[in-house]
């Protein structure tokens, strides 16, 4: 039921993910942030086994930071993607991680880029992609409506259309989504799309 999807626009990349933390029939919380800010100009949207997801993405994040401290400059998006894929591949025939990843980043000179990395260490550089049951609907929407060099407004419109499609057509659709964007000014949260607000429980 987890959905992670994203696309590359003109000078930016967007990654959106659902925010439900689920264990069989129980929803633990509906505001779980699954799109990690890897460093100043990278986003890592991950879906899959919750334990693996957190463990693996934090591991990647700390290694990306270590590289920056060691070398004084950040890793490129391509290098990060290849490193991530390598870690998944190494673990694959021993203790595989069940994590699917959409890695988006902005590099000076290269611009925005997005990488599709699935749990068996397949890696593709893509302009639009999606994981999960939601991908059946998102990919079709994006195939129809995506075009290269979309503006932010057009891209958000497309993301919203995908979210609406997921909500209408997926039987156990996640209620809330987070949208994050990365461009030359950095990686940051763009918006939440909430159809169920977590109630604030007052302490008695």
């Amino acid at each position, binding site marked *: 039921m987890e959905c992670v999807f994203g696309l590359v626009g003109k000078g930016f990349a967007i990654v959106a993910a659902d925010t439900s933390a689920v264990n069989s029939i129980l929803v633990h919380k509906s505001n779980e942030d699954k799109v990690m800010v890897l460093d100043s100009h990278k986003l890592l949207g991950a879906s899959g086994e919750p334990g693996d997801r957190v463990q693996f993405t934090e591991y990647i994040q*700390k290694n990306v930071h270590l590289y920056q401290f060691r070398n004084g400059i950040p890793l490129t998006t391509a290098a990060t993607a290849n490193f991530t894929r390598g870690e998944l591949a190494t673990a694959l025939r021993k203790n595989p991680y069940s994590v699917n990843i959409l890695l988006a980043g902005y590099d000076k000179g290269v611009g925005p880029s997005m990488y599709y990395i699935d749990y068996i260490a397949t890696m593709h550089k893509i302009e639009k992609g999606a994981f999960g049951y939601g991908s059946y609907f998102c990919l079709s929407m994006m195939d129809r409506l995506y075009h290269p060099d979309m503006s932010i407004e057009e891209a958000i419109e497309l993301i919203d259309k995908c979210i609406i499609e997921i909500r209408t057509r997926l039987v156990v659709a996640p209620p809330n989504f987070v949208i994050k964007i990365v461009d030359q000014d950095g990686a940051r949260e763009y918006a939440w799309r909430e159809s169920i607000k977590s109630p604030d429980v007052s302490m008695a």
Partner: protein
Amino acid sequence: MARYDRAITVFSPDGHLFQVEYALEAVRKGNAAVGVRGSDTVVLGVEKKSTPKLQDSRTVRKIVSLDTHIALACAGLKADARVLINRARIECQSHRLTVEDPVTVEYITRYIAGLQQKYTQSGGVRPFGLSTLIVGFDPYSEKPALYQTDPSGTFSAWKANATGRNSNSMREFLEKNYKETSGKETIKLAIRALLEVVESGGKNIEIAVMTHKDGLRQLEEAEIDEYVAEIEAEKAAAEAAKKGGFCFIILY
């Protein structure tokens, strides 16, 4: 005594570990380094020995950051420093990964000192030939800290300290002139201590300033020259006011 200095694991009859003491000699030959702790700022300064004309000085960074809130300067064998710094950087990230908290200055100092000590108690290895000055801000208390480690693996916290060449003169100066400072005054105190033993001028010293808000900032040569000019002016004014010779304290 020469029989007791070959292997590190051997104590001499009078309780010395000669290899460690020789390592301290190596530190004494290294470039001067000073650290000063202010109320909201910590400053590290190192002496920059004349750079060869053909060398790209940007690749010779003497003050390095271990994490966003910790920086390190050292005196002694620079190659050993590289190894120690690398291990410390890994430990900083590893700590963040396992406990989801940045390291405190004391923690990473204890780690580095622990590493240095390990190499004084193993077979076939020699100690690290460097002393480090570690500065930073503790993540939640936001208090500044300055620590020093040495080849024996001891460490302690300081308000201000110096290591490397002529560290005794710098430390004496700091003991005489230390007072609680903040911001620019802390920077000036560090520069004044360095200028006691280093040729004056921005191109002979490297200064880095760390604040809780802005992290580590290396000062530009021009900025350092400005501070040096200010200090010289203050010195000249003080001399004119004193209007007399120096006071010597002659030690027998």
